[in-house]
């Protein structure tokens, strides 16, 4: 049997996938890109030997990354997705009919091309007229826009190419481009394995935003599973949804929205490093 072993150097446990067939393998200007067919997970999308999504469970990540912020804001009209060239996050964003304009800022054109060809289940909405795709560095693009309601960072690992998307300077620019009701959201790795990274991002965001929180959801195909998301808001408490739930989601609903946040007690214990593992 052919297998693929994920190479996330900082993960203490390695994931190995059975491979039925390699559908695409190539290099772009920025990274190595691969799509393979797995008997267990369907199509698997890989960047620099790290699994980005699988056909079977991609909606866990895409729904959770998108809908908490999008339901906290009562009426999101302008949205920016940084990264996310596969289109999965954009598909979720467009479920919100209030959205008038959605920028997709992907540095690597090849990712979008490969996704359109091999991953239609996530890329299908990239041709929607509300979507405007920019092939450029998100950290630069963010400086050129304003009055954005939601900024979603859907990037690769913080230690790699996406590093600038986790810097204080970037968060400052995000703050500046957001409308007075605006929110920012990003994934911040596994609480199980890299709690210190999640804490670091929370602390950096707190220097800039008045409301910063963390929520989490289990994602089986990301090493460490217990996946965390950082959310920062100018006005609304992200723990409380402020709009009707959009149709079509599989996991997200208003009850789930409230449930994904850590109890405040545990949140504080983790942030103060009173509990360590």
């Amino acid at each position: 049997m052919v297998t693929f072993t994920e190479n996330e150097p900082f993960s203490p446990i390695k994931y190995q996938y059975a491979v039925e067939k390699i559908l695409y393998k190539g290099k772009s200007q920025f990274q190595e890109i691969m799509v393979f067919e797995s008997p267990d997970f369907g199509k698997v999308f890989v960047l620099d030997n790290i699994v980005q999504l699988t056909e079977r469970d991609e909606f866990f990540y895409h729904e959770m990354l998108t809908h908490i912020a999008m339901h906290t804001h009562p009426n999101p009209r302008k949205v920016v997705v940084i990264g996310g060239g596969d289109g999965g996050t954009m598909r979720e964003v467009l479920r919100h009919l209030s959205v008038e304009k959605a920028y997709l800022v992907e540095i690597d054109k090849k990712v979008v091309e490969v996704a359109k060809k091999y991953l239609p289940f996530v890329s299908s909405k990239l041709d929607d007229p509300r979507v405007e795709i920019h092939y450029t560095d998100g950290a630069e693009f963010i400086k050129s826009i304003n009055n954005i309601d939601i900024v979603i960072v859907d990037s690769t690992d913080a230690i790699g190419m996406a590093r600038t998307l986790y810097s204080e300077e970037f968060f400052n620019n995000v703050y500046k481009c957001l409308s007075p009701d605006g929110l920012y959201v990003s994934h911040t790795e596994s609480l199980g394995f890299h709690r210190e990274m999640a804490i670091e991002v929370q602390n950096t965001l707190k220097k800039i935003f008045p409301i910063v929180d963390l929520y989490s959801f289990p994602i089986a195909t990301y090493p460490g599973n217990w996946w965390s998301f950082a959310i920062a808001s100018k006005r609304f408490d992200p723990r409380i949804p402020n709009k009707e739930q959009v149709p079509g989601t599989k996991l997200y609903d208003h009850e789930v929205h409230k449930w994904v946040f850590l109890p405040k007690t545990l949140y504080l214990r983790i942030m103060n490093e009173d509990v360590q593992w």
Partner: protein
Amino acid sequence: MVRKFKISDLHKRIISKKTLFKVLTYIDKNPDLETPLLLIDKEKLVQNAKSLGELIPNSRVFYAVKANSDIELLKILKNMGLGFEIASRGELELLKKLEVPPEKIITSNPVKSPDFIQSLYNYGVKYFVFDSISEIEKLEKWAPGCFGYVRITVPNEGSEWPLSKKFGVELDMAFDLIKRANDLKIISPIGVTFHVGSQCLNPYNWYIAIDKAKRLFDMCKDAGIKLKILNIGGGYPISYTKIAPNIREIEEKISSYLNEKFDEDIEIFIEPGRAIVGDTGIMVSKIIGTAKRDYENWIYLDVGIFNGLMEAIGGIKYLYIFEQTTPVNNKESSFFDRYKKWTVAGPSCDSMDVIEKNVYIDADPKSEQLVLIPSAGAYTVSYASEFNGFPIPKIKIL
């Protein structure tokens, strides 16, 4: 600009994700940074300093300034309440500048110049080491009324940086010296010190050393001289390319040996250098060229034996994290292509300036690429010279 580095499984065991993130973010923000540059992770430094001595009851920690005497770094340690171990007037001047009080200073250099002794004495330092009659005579003359401790020899097997026979004496001689100091009534013998060797990976060295020290304590007790201090030196190892036991593991052992051997109440002095700063530092270096000579592949870095990596001569092996400029070709490389053997050399024209031979590197090194060298906080910049005009790495605390 975001630079990409080739991170392997081994790297992550030596350097934490958070530290690497901080270092890489700093590099991104400073595209024109001058190399070689030693970046120090302050958080890790504080963490090391906090855990040192934690498991050894009744202990005091004196940072061995020789490991890295950067003034900002010393300031951080001073503010955490650590003491300092020094060997020269130059080091004393540094501590004076920081207004370190004399009771926080000791010297474990067994052969001191009279002017060093004098300046310590005038500053109010009380603890002095000796291991020879000549040193006792100097102390008698220049530091009357001081407390003295004697240095004994102990095995250094299994330490990666053994301290030859330069210092220390055997028990009989040590006992004679203590008696002599006691008879003079000008120096009060107060204790014993030893050094198991730097980067000591063999915990049994501490066992033998503590056992030997206890014998000397007993010999003195029988002669009516009560010793109170055991200075266990430094020697705690850090991880370079192999995973070394951590501070906790070493101190659990030391503490159990102390418990087993000593029934009386004694005060323990610890003099760590490497264990406090070593793994907090990442050297940022640049490849200045590559060459193929006969069948050997060579990489030349802008940091070498003379300007920072002196310990490579004594057998310390470093880890290298190479920058990766993304290959655009689609050619699959074979295992043998990928893991080529390299000789890593420094920039100077001295043929001794070779950091390491036969390094297997899974990368494609090219001029101008950066190379990160973790665990480079101790005995690097403090050893460095400007030989051949190559600069000593600057230090930046993150």
